[in-house]
């Protein structure tokens, strides 16, 4: 009950603060107060609220639980991404003055026809990211109140769209900054509890050397249809439907593959090996805790996967449209960079705490490997950390953090999608923007209901791969290479966007399902990002139509702003 109230409170406060337009209490008669820019630290809170999404909050612990330490590359990639953003992207883009990525590219390359093209890449990549947030919403809602998966997707999708079209962008910096605290707290609290627990414990390693097994007697709920595989005979009691047969508290011996229907519960006893969902790797504790090796990662090529994951995530972060626009709120490039420094300082500890949740999940919630619900790892671990009121409170904090994570990011993404659709593609105004919000939300809700069986980080992987391939090179080369041309950019977006989208579709529809083919299609960044850079550079070098007044544009991006201020006294 307490967790539900906590989540309800976060949602309500988000809506109320957003819609009522409480903007830093900026209703004033004091001009000095009203024209004071957003403090870089507070903007950093907002960037963090935007950047800490269901992808990290729910997705990363799930990845760690399932695949082990190889997944730490995801976090490393994101951290490097923020560093790159800080060093190479945030300040120049801010100084150039453009609001969105398509506008920046258009202005930098004098290429109006490029704008809708880049906008399409922005929409595609944001859309996959948004689906991941809605998936998180569905999973958390189901975990919290036992409602079917689609309820959370629809409710959150509609709430976010309603909030935005009712003027919810007004207080967005404030709201997202405020959500950051919930997100951070949601990870900090269980981490602290675990840390104290370990400090006072017997020093036994968390990870046992065995394959995943139940530490205690456990009743496992199956919230969706799955096929599980028991490698040893496991005597259990089942209520529900197994292999199409309806049973009620019947003792059954599991061996081999079994179809378990939604709503079934199975009682396991302590020491039973977890019958994993078919397709999951049965990793021993040692395999789990050691990188590379013989794992079913990247189609059996974990080294390739490591590089691909690193590239996709680092170039993906700089090119995610909802992150870059946040720096527009800073008045100068210097402030943008200062904001980003704070972002790094706050997001690094957050990223550092996440893996522990996933690792503990292997002990506390091995059942998630069986019931296809790994994306709820964070919430389930939070729920099982302690008994009684303490447990409820931890659960409440963790669930509230999850809600804040997907709400803030979903609204940022929906703004990016609707903005790109109405502003960059249709070249229209505010009423069309509101309409675009609802179109974006509608399409995403429909698709969000269909992605129940796709892991959050698979969706994020596609999103970052598209962003890293189609948009990343445009930003990096646009800012740092005077020779970049319109045709180079068009070729990059068209080819990069197409190949990565095709790769995502190939994996989505199961056309490729093993070996190198799967590695290349599921995690394309290791080849697609270098390819995109190569195309961009080759085409630009061959292109006779160079951009005019590049020097002026570079000066605009790279020279510090004039520090002349209206009321300043002349020196």
């Amino acid at each position, binding site marked *: 009950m307490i967790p539900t109230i906590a989540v309800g409170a976060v949602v309500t406060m988000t809506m109320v603060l957003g819609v009522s337009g409480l903007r830093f209490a*900026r209703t004033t008669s004091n001009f000095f107060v009203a024209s004071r820019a*957003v403090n870089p630290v507070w903007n950093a809170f907002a960037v963090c609220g935007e950047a800490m999404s269901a992808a990290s909050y729910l997705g990363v612990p799930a990845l760690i639980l399932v695949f082990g330490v190889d997944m730490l590359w995801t976090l490393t990639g994101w951290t490097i991404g923020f560093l790159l953003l800080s060093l190479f992207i945030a300040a120049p883009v801010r100084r150039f003055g*453009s609001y969105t990525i398509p506008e920046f590219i258009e202005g930098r390359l004098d290429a109006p026809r490029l704008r809708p093209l880049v906008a399409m890449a922005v929409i595609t990549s944001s859309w996959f990211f948004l689906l991941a947030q809605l998936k998180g919403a569905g999973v958390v809602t189901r975990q919290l109140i036992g409602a079917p998966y689609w309820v959370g997707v629809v409710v959150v999708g509609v709430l976010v769209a309603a909030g935005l079209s009712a003027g919810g962008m007004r207080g967005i910096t404030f709201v997202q900054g405020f959500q950051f605290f919930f997100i951070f707290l949601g990870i900090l609290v269980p981490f602290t509890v675990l840390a104290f627990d370990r400090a006072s414990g017997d020093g036994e390693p968390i990870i046992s050397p065995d394959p995943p097994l139940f530490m205690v007697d456990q009743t496992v709920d199956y919230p969706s249809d799955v096929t599980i595989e028991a490698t040893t005979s496991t005597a259990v009691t089942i209520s529900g439907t197994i292999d199409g047969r309806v049973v009620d508290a019947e003792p059954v011996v599991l061996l081999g593959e079994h179809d378990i229907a939604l709503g079934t519960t199975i009682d396991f006893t302590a020491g039973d090996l977890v019958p994993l969902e078919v397709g999951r790797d049965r990793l021993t504790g040692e395999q789990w805790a050691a990188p590379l090796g013989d794992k079913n990662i990247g189609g059996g090529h974990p080294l390739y996967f490591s590089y691909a994951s690193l590239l996709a995530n680092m170039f993906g972060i700089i090119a995610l449209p909802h992150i870059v626009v946040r720096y527009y709120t800073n*008045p100068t490039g210097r402030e943008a960079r200062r904001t980003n420094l704070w972002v790094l300082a706050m997001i690094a500890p957050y990223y550092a705490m996440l893996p522990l949740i996933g690792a503990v999940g292997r002990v506390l919630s091995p059942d998630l490997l069986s019931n296809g619900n790994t994306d709820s790892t964070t919430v389930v671990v939070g729920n099982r950390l302690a008994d009684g009121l303490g447990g409820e409170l931890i659960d409440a904090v963790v669930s509230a953090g999850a809600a804040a994570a997907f709400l803030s990011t979903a609204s940022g993404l929906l703004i990016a999608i609707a903005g790109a659709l109405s502003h960059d593609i249709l070249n229209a105004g505010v009423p069309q*923007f509101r309409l675009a919000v609802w179109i974006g939300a509608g399409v995403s809700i429909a698709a969000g209901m269909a992605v129940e069986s796709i892991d959050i980080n698979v969706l994020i992987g596609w999103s970052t791969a598209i962003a890293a391939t189609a948009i990343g090179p445009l930003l990096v080369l646009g800012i740092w290479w005077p020779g970049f041309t319109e045709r180079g950019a068009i070729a990059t977006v068209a080819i990069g966007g197409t190949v990565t989208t095709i790769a995502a579709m190939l994996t989505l529809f199961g056309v490729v399902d093993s070996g190198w083919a799967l590695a290349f299609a599921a995690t394309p960044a290791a080849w697609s990002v270098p390819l995109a850079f190569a195309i961009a550079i080759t085409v630009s070098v061959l292109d006779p139509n160079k951009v005019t007044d590049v020097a002026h544009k570079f000066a605009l991006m790279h020279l510090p702003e004039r520090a002349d201020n*209206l009321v300043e006294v002349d020196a």
Partner: protein
Amino acid sequence: MSRNRRWDRRALRLPDDPSDVLGALNELNQHLRRGLDERSAAFIARTTRQLLDCRVVAVTADSTLLAQDGEAVDWQVEVEDHATLVLERRRTAKPTLYTMSLGRDQAEVAVAVLTSDDVPIGTIHAMTVQGQPLNMNALRELTVLVGSQLQIAELDQSRAFAAEAELRALRAQLSPHFLHNSLTAIAGLVNTDPIRARSAISQFSDFLRASFRIQSDLWTLSEELRLVDLYLELARVRFGDRFDVLLTIDPETLPVQVPVLSVQTLVENALRHGLETKPGQGSLHLGAENDGPEITITVEDDGVGIDPDRLQQALNGTDTSSHVGILATDTRLRSTFGPEYGLMIATAANAGTKVIMRLPKNPPKRG
């Protein structure tokens, strides 16, 4: 006639697909939008050579060679000399042929004069392929086309000049009216409240300095707000505390580029036409809302309002006595950001006035 046309076609060597020709002309048009410079001249030369199929084409601005396309012929001196000759004689009506001696060689060269608004501004020289007559009609038509495009470019440029001039005018207009009122008000304070008079004078000087230092057409909303603040401080000297000001500014809107003095003009309008004649206490609300890729600035007063008919007259330009500031702001917004960004005004007699200004976050193209 039909015979003649067939001959034309062969001489022109038009590509089989007319869309190639149209494409080439469209590309040429785009380049001409910048006016006659080295790059656009290169395009004129290239297009002329392709369409008329000649050996080499040179383009001059006045009599200075800007670009040439085709065979590497060193004929700069000859071209420039002849261009001077042609321009002096003002042979603008149609292209002429002459024979040019280049060392030992003799070559047929057609020369046509480029005009913009009937003023000669340059020439095109086309050297024919030996034994193949040049289509003089086509050259003339091409010259006319280039000329009209250059004229459009000139218009664009003069529009930009006009916008700049408007800014200057606005600044100038701001001053006399406002200077007079402020100084009178301060004069009134000197005896009764010398301390206040002193601070008003320093605010006045701040305001003047701020407006003198305006260099560009755009600055950020937060800079504009500081100017509006100074303006209102001075207005208070005159109005006393007869109006309250309420601000609701989304912080996300502060870095957005707004036309210099645009909000100030709207605020001044609200004071002069709304609150000045209103008996009793009035209030002014200034809001800036974050709307994703755009922002919305509203200036609202609860003053006497404007008679919609008079406003309509002012906006139509039939009544030039009042609301000049609003009209100028409207024109400036449209010319800076595009026709969809005009002002919206909601008003009625005795019902206050609300002016809504929409602006894109992305600044307009820097030219």
